[in-house]
């Protein structure tokens, strides 16, 4: 055990466990292992018991109260005794548009009510699990066994896994990688690579659309010897599944993109923070890294999220990797100056990094030729909901929503509503369906491209239920740090709940408007800034409320 420089309640060491040694400095060096260790405990016994938490706290070391704060922050880590097998079944907006509600009622009939232990198993409803193209989905945590995803999922299949039936999983073989772009990048030199990225005009694909080249130069030029590259694979925006798809298709494009980025900004360590429900994609990435590792100058480490939408926010993601609660930090300072472990950090989305090898190979100018002037290149769109062929569509910037829907086999039935950008996005009006999906057109006409989610709802869908689910999503996912979002998301849910019951008053509308304004203007991060978009747009275009 490390030497102590801190000894809270030391005198009670012989009699209790509520003590951690190591002190601020010792603890700081290993604190980042907290979440992986909590995952290990959760995976092996199905929950984090008091005794386990105390043991973890001693070994990291970290104060038990802080470890408890971290453990209780995440949905996939539980500090109450849980059955050995827990199915998390998606009832989010895309599943609701499809067979999700039917699956939930099947499960209620077959297994009884949610959140109720039934022997060694239990099922609960979950936010979007990122397999929206498959119709229904369940993520099942199993004590002592690998967690797994079933998609599409039926009540019978879920029940079988919950009973403990064995499941055969196929991890597809990983081919040998060819890192030709990386080799080329090395011959070009770091500055020339960054110049190509600037010339490509590529903007971040995670939702914020920040110019990637500016970010890369920012990190490269920031003072400091230690720099990091972080790949944001915490894809949790409802209706978004492109990053998972990309990793499944070609994990090496991402790995090569990270290696090039690390070379270009001068980082020797990189992290891929992948959402905790993407176990299959994580395994694939891990195998690919094993194959590729010796070819790379950068040490790439996978970190698994644990069920918190907020950790997709860049600074919350840093806190999560560092072993703290996944709460956002006030910016400035921006990650390019002070990010992971306080060092200059390049953080990019999976899709952004996966596009880098192509930019290096074909030159930035060629990339800039594709798409429009401000929105260059190809973009992955996740088209889901009531369409013929839901899936990921790789198209040139400039297509309209209507074209994308047609590309995806057209709408099933008559379109009632289209949501772009996921829960943080907004519902489109009829005329907005014909606006090109580019950053500039989106900005001018108030369309949120966000992460590229396009969710189609036909006239059979209860839009009040959908809007309520979005409000519920934000109330559940708010980290609770700042007041506008902590309270605002719940008050928004209260009002939408009243509207769902048929009440639609001027006071409530005014309050909703005011809550949205304050969340957008005064919250600490993007979650609060966007938490009212969908609800406000649903009212504005008359999808819900007394004018609906």
């Amino acid at each position, binding site marked *: 055990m490390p030497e102590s420089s801190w000894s809270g309640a030391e005198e009670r060491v012989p009699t209790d466990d509520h*003590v951690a040694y190591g002190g601020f400095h010792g603890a700081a060096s290993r604190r980042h292992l907290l979440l992986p260790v909590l995952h290990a405990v959760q995976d092996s016994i199905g929950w984090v018991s008091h005794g386990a938490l105390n043991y973890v706290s001693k070994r990291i070391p970290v104060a038990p109260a802080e470890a408890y704060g971290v453990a*209780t922050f995440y949905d996939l880590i539980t500090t109450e005794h849980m059955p050995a097998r827990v199915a998390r079944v998606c009832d989010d907006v895309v599943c609701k548009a499809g067979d999700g509600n039917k699956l939930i009622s099947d499960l209620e009939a077959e297994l009884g009510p949610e959140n109720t232990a039934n022997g060694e198993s239990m099922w609960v409803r979950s936010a979007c699990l990122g397999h929206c193209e498959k119709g229904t989905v369940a993520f099942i945590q199993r004590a002592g066994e690998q967690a797994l995803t079933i998609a599409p999922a039926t009540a019978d299949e879920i029940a079988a896994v919950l009973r403990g039936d064995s499941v055969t999983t196929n991890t597809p073989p990983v081919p040998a990688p060819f890192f030709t772009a990386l080799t080329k990048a090395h011959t070009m030199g770091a500055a020339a690579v960054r110049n190509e990225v600037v010339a490509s005009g590529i903007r971040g694909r995670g939702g914020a659309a920040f110019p990637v080249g500016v970010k890369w130069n920012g990190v490269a030029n920031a003072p400091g010897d230690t720099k990091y590259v972080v790949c944001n694979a915490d894809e949790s925006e409802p209706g978004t599944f492109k990053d998972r798809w990309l990793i499944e298709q070609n994990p090496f494009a991402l790995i090569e993109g990270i290696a090039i980025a690390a070379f270009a900004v001068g980082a020797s360590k990189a992290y891929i923070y992948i959402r905790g429900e993407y176990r299959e994609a994580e395994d694939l990435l891990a195998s690919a890294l094993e194959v590729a590792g010796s070819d790379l100058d950068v040490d790439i480490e996978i970190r698994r999220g644990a069920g918190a939408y907020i950790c997709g926010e860049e600074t919350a993601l840093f806190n999560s990797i560092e072993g703290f609660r996944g709460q956002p930090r006030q910016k400035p300072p921006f990650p390019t100056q002070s990010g992971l472990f306080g060092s200059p950090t390049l953080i990019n989305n999976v899709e952004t990094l996966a596009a880098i090898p192509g930019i290096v190979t074909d030159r930035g100018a060629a990339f800039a030729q594709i798409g429009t002037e401000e929105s260059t290149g190809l973009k992955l769109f996740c088209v889901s909901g009531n369409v013929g062929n839901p899936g990921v569509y790789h198209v040139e910037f400039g297509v309209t929503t209507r074209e994308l829907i047609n590309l995806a086999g057209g709408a099933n039935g008559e379109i009632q509503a289209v949501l772009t950008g996921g829960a943080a996005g907004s519902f489109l009006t009829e005329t907005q369906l014909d606006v090109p999906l580019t950053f500039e057109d989106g900005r001018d006409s108030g369309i949120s491209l966000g992460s590229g989610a396009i969710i189609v709802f036909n006239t059979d869908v209860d839009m009040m239920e959908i809007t309520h689910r979005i409000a519920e999503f934000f109330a559940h996912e708010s980290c609770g740090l700042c007041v506008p979002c902590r*309270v605002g998301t719940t008050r928004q849910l209260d009002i939408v709940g009243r509207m769902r019951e048929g009440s639609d008053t001027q006071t409530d509308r005014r309050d909703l408007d005011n809550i949205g304004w304050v969340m957008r203007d005064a919250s600490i991060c993007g979650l609060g800034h966007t938490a009212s978009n969908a609800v406000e747009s649903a009212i504005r275009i008359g999808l819900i409320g007394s004018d609906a």
Partner: protein
Amino acid sequence: MIESVLPNPGLVEVTVNGKTVLARPDATILEVCRAENVDIPTMCFLETLSPFNSCRLCVVEVTGSRTLVPSCSRTVDRGMEITTESERIANTRQTLYEMYASTVDLSLADADTQRWMAKYDVSPDRFGHYEAHREVKVQDDLYIRDYDKCVMCYRCVAACGPDAQNTFAIDVAGRGLFATISTEFDVVLPDSACVYCGNCIGVCPTGALMFKSEFDMREAGTWDENRQTITTTICSFCGVGCNLDLHVQDNRVVKVTSPIDHEVTDGHLCIKGRFGYAYLQSEDP
């Protein structure tokens, strides 16, 4: 703070509500404004702790910034144009107080909070009346925790942890509106790492953390600050020289604090200075 109004290459020029002011480049907007006697409300901020950015009441407008800017944590930039009062700001602060009032019992909030709530025309019941429903945690003879009154400002966590005591007995647990201040697995304080320095009580703005003596007197209806005197003395337990403010009612010490601007303590004490006064008034010598 502002050292001089004379031009100085070490200082940066900013404007506060149109008035040009010189400020240290590492000063926060809040420091600069308060030095200019500009009134800005705060809840989570305390001079002796690092800013936590939770309450957002201190937001101001900064020209060029899309959203409002928290003045407690943002340092000034050369040429920054700061506006501290506008309809946008007043509306935000009013709504934030109303949000607080719908989730917490503010009846014992500090005098400044009461004043600001009046200033911004706050209707406490706008988002629904908050009914206190949590059991007060009375787990020892020294202090109580009433989380119905907790605004989640994180001051106690900072004072218990890295900003003062380095004990880390409490942290935030849970998420969203269900987040609460807690020991691990909510164990009672005597079983936690708590060393009873009471610094969490010292920084609590809403009376959620309170001396047991004060709590008992309030329950009995005998707590009366108008009848209390404060005597400043120096703690005699060791040689550090902490200032103590003894709050005395009816010739009995009912509470001990330390001035926040005292250079030795920053308002913080240890268990002996904070709670070690019982011998003064022992009835059984």
